[in-house]
C-alpha cells in the first residue's frame, strides 16, 4: 500500500470524525465568548443525537432530524442560561448537571431506538468540480452536506467576530459586560441568545453522530466528544480557524486508532488505541496551556455571573 493510499482515506476520515467535535466546539466558542462556560456540551450533544435520530426515523427526513436536534440543544442550553444568567447559579456545576441530565434523558428516550436503522441519513455527495481536485478533493469535498456547512460556519463565525459590529459586541460581552451595560446594551438578553445558539450547534454536533457518522443511536454514543470539544476551545484560543484545525487533529487521532485496529495491529491492545483521543486531549491541553502561559486570550469575564448591583 502506498503512502497516498493510506493517507488520503485517513485524512478524509479525520474530517468526518472531526466534524461533530467542530460543531460542538464552535457552539462552545460562541458561548464562552459571551462570558458563559457551558460544561453541558456532552449532554447537549447526546440530546441532539437522540432527538435528531428519533425525528429522522419518524419523518424519514434527516433535515427534520437536524432541526429537532437544534431545538433540543437550544432548549437544554436555555436551561443553562436561565440558571446561570438569571439565577446566577454556579456555571461549572450547572453544566455538569446538564451533562448528567442529558445523559440520563437521552438514554431514557432512546431506549426503543437502539439498533434501528435510520431510513434516510446524510450521505456523501461530492461537491461538483471541487471533488475532483487531486488530493484536496477526496479529503475535503467528497463528504455529506453537513461537512460543507461546517466549513461555511467557521468562516461566518470568524467574519462575524472580527468584522461586524454585533461580533465586536459579542467579544466585549465576555471581556467586560459592565462596559456593555453602560453603553445601553442588554447584557442578559445577549448572553441568553448566544448561549442558546451555542447549544443549538452542540445539538447539530450530536445529530451529526447519529445521522451521518454512525448513523444510528446508541446510549452514550458521544463517548466524551462533548468534553473534547470543551478542551478544543481552549486549544483554539477562542478562534474558529484554530478550532477547525484542532477538530481535524482530534478527528485524525480518532480515525488513526480505528484504522490501526482494522489493520490488525495485534501487538497493541485495542484498549490502548481507544485511549488515544483522551490521552491526546490531556497532553495537548497541558502543552498548549504550559507554552502559552499567561497569554491564553481567555475572555476576561468568563464564568462570572453578571450582577448589575456589583458593577
Amino acid at each position, binding site marked *: 500500500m502506498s503512502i497516498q493510499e493510506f493517507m488520503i482515506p485517513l485524512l478524509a476520515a479525520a474530517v468526518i470524525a472531526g466534524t461533530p467535535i467542530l460543531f460542538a466546539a464552535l457552539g462552545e466558542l460562541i458561548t464562552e465568548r459571551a462570558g458563559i462556560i457551558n460544561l453541558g456540551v456532552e449532554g447537549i450533544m447526546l440530546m441532539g443525537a437522540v432527538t435528531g435520530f428519533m425525528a429522522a426515523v419518524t419523518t424519514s427526513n434527516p433535515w427534520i432530524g437536524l432541526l429537532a436536534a437544534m431545538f433540543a440543544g437550544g432548549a437544554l442550553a436555555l436551561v443553562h442560561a436561565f440558571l446561570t444568567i438569571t439565577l446566577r447559579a454556579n456555571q461549572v456545576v450547572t453544566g455538569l448537571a446538564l451533562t448528567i441530565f442529558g445523559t440520563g434523558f437521552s438514554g*431514557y428516550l432512546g431506549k426503543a431506538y437502539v439498533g434501528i436503522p435510520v431510513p434516510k441519513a446524510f450521505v456523501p455527495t461530492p461537491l461538483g468540480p471541487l471533488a475532483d481536485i487531486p488530493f484536496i478533493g477526496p479529503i475535503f469535498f467528497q463528504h455529506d452536506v453537513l461537512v460543507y456547512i461546517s466549513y461555511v460556519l467557521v468562516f461566518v463565525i470568524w467574519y462575524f467576530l472580527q468584522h461586524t459590529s454585533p461580533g465586536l459586541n459579542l467579544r466585549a460581552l465576555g471581556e467586560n459586560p459592565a462596559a456593555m451595560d453602560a453603553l445601553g446594551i442588554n447584557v442578559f438578553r445577549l448572553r441568553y441568545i448566544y448561549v442558546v445558539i451555542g447549544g443549538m450547534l452542540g445539538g447539530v454536533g450530536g445529530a451529526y453522530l447519529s445521522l451521518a457518522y454512525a448513523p444510528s443511536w446508541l446510549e452514550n454514543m458521544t463517548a466524551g466528544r462533548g468534553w473534547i470539544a470543551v478542551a478544543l476551545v481552549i486549544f483554539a484560543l477562542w478562534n474558529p480557524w484554530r478550532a477547525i484545525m484542532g477538530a481535524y487533529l482530534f478527528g485524525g487521532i480518532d480515525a488513526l486508532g480505528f484504522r490501526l485496529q482494522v489493520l490488525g495491529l495485534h501487538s497493541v*491492545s485495542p484498549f490502548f488505541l481507544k485511549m488515544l483521543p483522551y490521552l491526546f486531549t490531556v497532553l495537548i491541553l497541558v502543552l498548549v*496551556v504550559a507554552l502559552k502561559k499567561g497569554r491564553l486570550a481567555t475572555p476576561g469575564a468568563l464564568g462570572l455571573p453578571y450582577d448589575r448591583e456589583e458593577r
Partner: protein
Amino acid sequence: MERHSYKLEKRLTPSPVMVFIIPIISVLLALILGGIFLSMTGREPLAVYTIMFTDSLGSKYGLTETIVKAIPLALTALGVSLAFKMKLWNIGAEGQFYMGAMGASWLPLTFPTLPVYVMIPGMVVLGMTAGGLWALLTAIPRAIWKVNEIITTLMLNYIAILWVDYLVFGPWRDPLGSNFPITAAFSDAARLPGLGDSRIHSGLFFALAIAVILAIVFKYSRWGYSINVIGSSERAASYAGMNIKRNILLVMFLSGAISGLAGMAEVSGIIGKLQHGISPGYGYTAIIVAWLSKLNPLAILIVSVLFGALQVGGYAAQIEGVPAAVATMLQGMILFFVLGGEIFTNYRVRRVSRKGEESK
C-alpha cells in the same frame, strides 16, 4: 396606583432555613417534572415511582441494596467534596474509583496467600495510593500552569476505565475461568467482612470514619480553615501566606485517595474480584450528592442513602420495562432545582416601589 418591581439583595450569610428546605423542595419538584416526562412518554408515573420506592426502601432486601450502593456513593462524594471546598473541580472520581479498585486488586491477585491482617490494610493502602496518584496526575499541571482540571480529570476517567478493561480482558484475566473479562476470585482474606450475613460490608465504616474526620478537619483544624479560605478567594489566601500550590497537590491527592478507597471497598466488599464495569457511574452521581449536601460531610452520608435508593429504584424500574436511565434523569433534574434554588439561599427578594423606596 403605586407600582412595584422586585430586586435581589445579597444576603450576608446564607439563609439557614433555605439551606435545609431547598434540597427537599428540589427532590419533590424533580419527581413532579420527571413524572410529567414519564407520562408524556406513555408511562404511569405513580406506578413507576411506587415500584422504585418499595423496591429500594420498602423491604429488608431493598434497604440492604440501598446501603450497598450508598457506601461507594458516600465515599466518592466525600472525596469530591474535599476538592470542591477548594474550588478544585475534580470530576474524576469515577476514574479514581477504578484505579483504586485496580491498585487494591493487585495484592490478592499477586500474593493470594497473605493473611488477612496484612491483606486488608495492604489493599487499603494500595487502593488509596492508586486513586490518589491518578488524581495527582491532573493536580500537577493544575498547580504549575493552571491547566483546567475539569477536562483533565474527566479525560482520565475514560482512560482509567479502558485501562481496567485492558487488564481484565488481557493480562489479569482468570486463566482458569471461562472467557469472561474477570480476574481470579480473591481469597477470603481479601474480602471485607460483612455485617452479619448481609451484603452490607465494613466499607460502611470507612465512609463513616472519613465523614467524621473531614467534619472535624473542616470545623476545627487550621488546615481545614485554609482550604476554605483558598476556596473562597485565592488572592486572599496567598496574601495570608498560604501555600496554594502545595494545597492543590495535597487536596487533589487526598480527594483521589478517598475515591480510590471506594473502589477498594467495592471489589473487596462486594465483587470479590476485578471485572469490567465495576461502577454504574458512582463518581458522577457523587458530584450531585456532594453539591446537594452543600459539601457537608455528615449531610453527604444521608444524601448518599437517598441516591443509593434512587439507583436501586432505577434497576427496579428497568425490570418493569422502564429504562434505568430514568434514575440518572431524575438525578440531573434534582441538581437543576437545587442550583436554581440557591438564589433563595444567597439572596433575598425585596419588593421595591418605583420611586426607589423600599417597602417590605
